[in-house]
Every structure is written in structure tokens, then in C-alpha cells.
């Protein structure tokens, strides 16, 4: 009964023309950005974040959430039609989507992708609707030691589950955490502010977000004349796209398993949709009788990938809102947006701001419907207009980045921070480090710092024992250790398999 009441509150919260218009705008923009390779979901949310400064918290979050939700589908369009994923989480979609395009069946691939995305996404938001209170209730039992560990886990897991060098990723995360400590300490002291008044509030998240995700990517694009240089010759049939909507229902076990996996992986801080898509695809292929057909145009591959990567968004959002730790890079940006609007994510938000939380969930569910309508049009009408010259794209996005960073505090200092972050982000990417880990660290640092100081105040000189004497904290520590061991083991296994494959090839 309580859920029905929350459902009603959420629906009433978004029942205005302004909010619906923002959902529509967010869905369209997200899909366009998602369909543009080189522009990720984190980048999309980061560059649009400044537009929400003067919106109400709910409207701002609704807009950004619908962008976040629809970017993932947009990326599958180019993955299917051009073999160029619009975002990393769509990489797997291309494995079977592009072969279908080559076989002249892009309608089937596009329709399957739309339908799987919507079903996976809707299912995860329904889970979120039902489960967020329970997650918040568990989070209420967390004390300062647990909250400190959870905040750190958001950065540590990026290193464990990411594909890059774990040492470099952890170094990036530690660096982000360190620069996040700049500013006024809870004890009242000024830490590493160098006498600069703009640093008293710490390094602002928004300029760093824009710099690391937008400016650094634009610096990469300088090396290209076009974002994508391919033309689309495949013809698509609108009726074919609609008929393909039922395809996921012909593979109910794949759909169910992938949606559950996606939602579950989304709950893990920092895991992200890319991991969800890969894990789901790998498992589906392993369990299939026709596994040799994967990679040749097997629709089950598309169902597995797209339902999982969209289902991840509900789980990620639940972790972000209920615990205050981002479930993905894009939700890290949403966390920044919450902070910007004066809201503190965590169980208090879930239980105290029901209109905002459930309004957001209902907006995400409604946006799935909007996504179907817009996605069909975008998928059908897409004509390879991705030959966008970068010399046009770069100045356009730089102007919005510049103004977005400046508008935060009307301060040139923030623009300078954005540009320095952009240049540094470019160097990080070029050398195998992780800008995403730096941003995660920056966002989570205040939480970790405050909770550690509270732990000192509660436990005195025995503060470190609190991580082992409190059952929840000990459980989190053990999960850390297990994740680190598993990560090291699977990397070693992957390396051995690669070495064995190379040796086999050499023998032949």
C-alpha cells in the first residue's frame, strides 16, 4: 500500500507540462548524443548539467536522468548500423547487430534493440520503485565506518572491474580523492587552499566533470577530420522495425536473466553498464546451444546486451540515491547535480524527499515510453549524418563547456579549473590512466573525509578497529578483499588464455 502511495506521489510530482517537456527534450538530446560516437553518457550529462542550475531540483534531475537513460539506446543505433558504438556500453551490441545490418536485416536489429532496452530499463525501474526503501533502510544502519568504506569502494571498484591497468586506475582514484580534500576541513582548518578564496569551498565538481569528460574528449577529436567517416547504405523498413519489437519475447529466459544481471550489476558502485552488457552477453553465449552463431547476427546477443545495459541504470540510480555512492560514471554526475541543488543523497533523501525520489523513478519509467516513440524515428531516419566535421563540433561544445563552467559561480577561476582538468584528462587518457576514477574520487572525497573524521571522534585512538569490530563494516572489508582477489585471478586467467592462444597460433 505504501508503494502505491509513493507511486501516486511520484506521478503527481511529474504531472506538469514543463516536466513532460523536459523529459521529451532530455530523451531527444540523449539519443542524439548517444548516437554520436565519441560522446558518452557521462559527457552528455556533464555538458547539460549547467542548464539545470536554475531549474527546480526535480526538473533538473528529471532532465538529466532522461538524458542518461536514452543515451544508452542512442549508442546502439550506430553500433548496429556502423559497427561504431556510440558509447562503451554498446560495444557488445555491435557484435551481432552489425552482422545483421550486413545481411540486410538492420530492421530486425534496431527493433530488437529498442524493445530489449525498454523492457530491461522498465523492469529495473520497477525494481527500484519497490526496492529503494529497503535499500535505504539498510543504509540507515550504516555508521561512519561503513559510509567511509562504501565511499572508498566507489573508487576501488573502478580499478578492480575496469579494463585498464589497475594500478594506474587506482592511482587516478587516489589522486581524485586527494584533490577532493582541498578546502575547509570539518575541523574548521583550510587545507591546501593556497590562500585562494575560490578554493575555500574545494575544487568544484562541475568544472572538473566538464573538463575531464568533454574538453579532454574534444582534444582527442582534434586528431580527426570527422567524428565518424562511414556512410550508411542500409535501407530500413519502418514496419520491419515494429515487427521486431516482439523478438525479445521469443527469448524470455535471455531477457529475464539479462535484465536481472543488469540490475544487479548496476547496484555495485562504479561497475557500470559496460560490465553489465559484457557479462550478460558472455553468459548468454556460454549457455546457448547455438553459441557458434554468436557474432554472426544472433538476435539473442542483442537482447542480452541491450536489456542488461539499460537494466543497469535502475540499479545504478538506486545505489546513487539510497546510499550516496554512484553506480556508474553518469550517476556520479547526477550525484554532482544533487549536491548542486543542495540535496544530500542517502537514506534521508529517500525517506524525506519522497516527491523527488519517486518523481524521478516515474520520470525514468515514462521516458521508456517516450524512448520507443523517438527511437523508432531516429533509427529509421538515421542517414549516416555522422560525418560531422570536428572543426565545427569542437567549437560548439567548447562554447557550452566554457559558459557552463563560468555560470556556476560567475568565476573565471572555474573556467581555468575546467581547462586544466581537460588538459590533464587528455594526458591521463593518452597514458592509460582513468579520468573517470579521478572524477569519482573528487565526488566521493568529501563523504569519505567527513565520515573518517566522525569515526575518529567516535572511536578515538582505536578508530581502525571499528572496521573489524562492526559486522557491517567487516562485511564490506571482506567484499573488498574478495573483489580484489577475484579481479587479480580473472586478469591472470585472461592473460594466460591470451598467451595460450598466441602460442597455439604460432604452432600452427
Amino acid at each position, binding site marked *: 500500500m505504501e508503494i502505491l502511495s509513493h507511486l501516486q506521489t511520484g506521478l503527481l510530482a511529474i504531472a506538469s507540462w514543463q516536466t513532460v517537456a523536459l523529459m521529451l527534450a532530455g530523451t531527444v538530446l540523449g539519443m542524439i548524443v548517444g548516437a554520436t560516437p565519441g560522446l558518452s553518457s557521462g559527457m552528455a550529462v556533464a555538458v547539460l548539467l549547467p542548464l539545470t542550475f536554475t531549474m527546480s531540483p526535480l526538473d533538473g534531475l528529471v532532465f538529466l536522468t532522461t538524458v542518461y537513460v536514452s543515451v544508452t539506446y542512442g549508442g546502439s543505433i550506430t553500433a548496429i548500423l556502423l559497427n561504431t558504438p556510440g558509447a562503451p556500453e554498446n560495444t557488445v551490441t555491435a557484435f551481432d547487430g552489425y552482422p545483421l545490418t550486413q545481411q540486410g536485416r538492420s530492421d530486425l536489429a534496431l527493433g530488437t534493440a529498442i524493445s530489449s532496452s525498454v523492457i530491461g530499463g522498465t523492469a529495473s525501474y520497477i525494481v527500484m520503485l519497490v526496492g529503494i526503501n529497503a535499500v535505504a533502510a539498510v543504509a540507515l544502519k550504516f555508521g561512519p565506518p561503513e559510509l567511509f568504506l562504501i565511499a572508498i569502494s566507489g573508487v576501488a571498484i573502478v580499478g578492480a572491474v575496469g579494463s585498464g591497468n589497475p594500478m594506474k586506475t587506482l592511482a587516478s582514484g587516489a589522486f581524485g580523492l586527494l584533490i577532493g580534500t582541498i578546502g575547509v576541513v570539518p575541523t574548521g582548518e583550510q587545507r591546501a587552499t593556497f590562500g585562494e578564496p575560490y578554493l575555500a569551498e574545494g575544487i568544484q565538481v562541475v568544472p572538473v566533470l566538464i573538463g575531464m569528460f568533454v574538453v579532454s574528449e574534444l582534444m582527442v577529436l582534434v*586528431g580527426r577530420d570527422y567524428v565518424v567517416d562511414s556512410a550508411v547504405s542500409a535501407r530500413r523498413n519502418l514496419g520491419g522495425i515494429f515487427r521486431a519489437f516482439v523478438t525479445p519475447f521469443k527469448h524470455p529466459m535471455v531477457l529475464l536473466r539479462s535484465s536481472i544481471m543488469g540490475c544487479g550489476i548496476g547496484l555495485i558502485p562504479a561497475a557500470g553498464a559496460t560490465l553489465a552488457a559484457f557479462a550478460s552477453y558472455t553468459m548468454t553465449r556460454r549457455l546457448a546451444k547455438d553459441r557458434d552463431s554468436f557474432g554472426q547476427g544472433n538476435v539473442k546477443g542483442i537482447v542480452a546486451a541491450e536489456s542488461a545495459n539499460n537494466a543497469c541504470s535502475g540499479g545504478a540510480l538506486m545505489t546513487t540515491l539510497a546510499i550516496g555512492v554512484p553506480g556508474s560514471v553518469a550517476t556520479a554526475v547526477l550525484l554532482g547535480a544533487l549536491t548542486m541543488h543542495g540535496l544530500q543523497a542517502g537514506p534521508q533523501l529517500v525517506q524525506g524527499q519522497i516527491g523527488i525520489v519517486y518523481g524521478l523513478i516515474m520520470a525514468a519509467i515514462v521516458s521508456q515510453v517516450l524512448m520507443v516513440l523517438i527511437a523508432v524515428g531516429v533509427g529509421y531516419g538515421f542517414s549516416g549524418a555522422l560525418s560531422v566535421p570536428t572543426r565545427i563540433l569542437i567549437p560548439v561544445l567548447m562554447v557550452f563547456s566554457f*559558459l557552463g563552467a563560468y555560470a556556476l559561480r560567475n568565476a573565471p577561476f572555474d573556467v581555468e579549473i575546467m581547462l586544466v582538468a581537460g588538459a590533464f584528462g587528455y594526458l591521463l587518457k593518452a597514458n592509460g590512466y582513468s579520468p573517470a576514477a579521478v572524477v569519482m574520487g573528487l565526488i566521493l572525497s568529501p563523504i569519505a573525509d567527513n565520515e573518517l573524521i566522525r569515526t575518529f571522534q567516535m572511536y578515538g585512538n582505536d578508530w581502525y578497529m571499528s572496521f573489524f569490530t562492526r559486522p557491517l563494516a567487516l562485511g564490506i572489508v571482506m567484499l573488498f578483499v574478495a573483489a580484489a582477489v577475484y579481479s587479480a585471478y580473472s586478469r591472470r586467467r585472461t592473460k594466460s588464455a591470451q598467451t595460450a592462444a598466441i602460442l597455439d597460433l604460432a604452432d600452427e
Partner: protein
Amino acid sequence: MSAPERSSSKFPLREFLVPALMLFAVAAYWWDAAGLSKEALAFPAVLTGVLLFCLAGVAVSRIWAGNSAVRPTASDDAADTAPDKWTWAKRLAVVALPFAMVLFIDVLGGLALLFIYVAALLWLLGERRWALLVALPIGLSFSGIALFKFILYARIPDGLVPLGSLF
């Protein structure tokens, strides 16, 4: 993005650039923060330790791998055109130009600054169509300022062009 090709030398300087920058930032941090209370420095101390450990690990694994390290190959969606010798300068200009110009935002004003920046960037990136070199800077600077001034109420300095009379 495509990974940059690595030099064939055992200790390519490029690979030490990021660690060097991080260490410089850490040194600057502690130069200013030393002398604070134990509570204020505990977390940064732990983070500094972790960072140094990770960077040491990176250095050791790089030295260990030496010349036998597998070179990363460029991905299929790498640069559609071969980067010319001025690509690095263009990349630098994307951030250096506005960095220098924003220091004069009170003098130039938002509109003039953006117009000059967009025009200069278009030229540097290879745009040579005069119509676009004039229209895009005008369009972008006006629309950007209008959007942020009216929607976000950002206080953007007038400078050379009085925005109040235009909007």
C-alpha cells in the same frame, strides 16, 4: 581513442609525465597543508601513501616489462586522417586560448571573447570558408550568451559589447 604509439626507448619520457604531474601536485598540496591538525591530515596522508604505492607499482611494472612490453595497437576507429605535425599545437590551442583569454573577460566581455575564440579555433582547425568563419562565431556567441544569460542568469561581463542593449 587510439592509444599513442610508444617510443622504443626503455624509459620513454612520456610515460613519466602523468606521474610527474601528480607528484608535483602532491608536493604542492603538502607544502601548503603541512602544519594542520592530525585529524585534518590523516585522510590525505593515507591517500598520498596509496598514490605513491600505485605510482611505484606502475614504475616497477614498466621497468620489469621493458622492451618486451606488447605495444598497444591503434583501434579501428582511430584518426580518420593521419595526424599532422601541428595536431599537438591544435590540441593545446583548444585549452590554452580560452585560458589566456578568460583572464581578460572583464575587459573583452563574454560576447567578444567567445566570438574571437570560436573564430580563432575554427581557423586553427582548418576551416577556410569565410561565410562559416563569420557566421558560426556570431551565431554561437550570441546563442550561447543568450541561453546562459536568460536561462541561467549568469552574470557575464559586457566588456567591449554592452549586452544590455542587445538583449
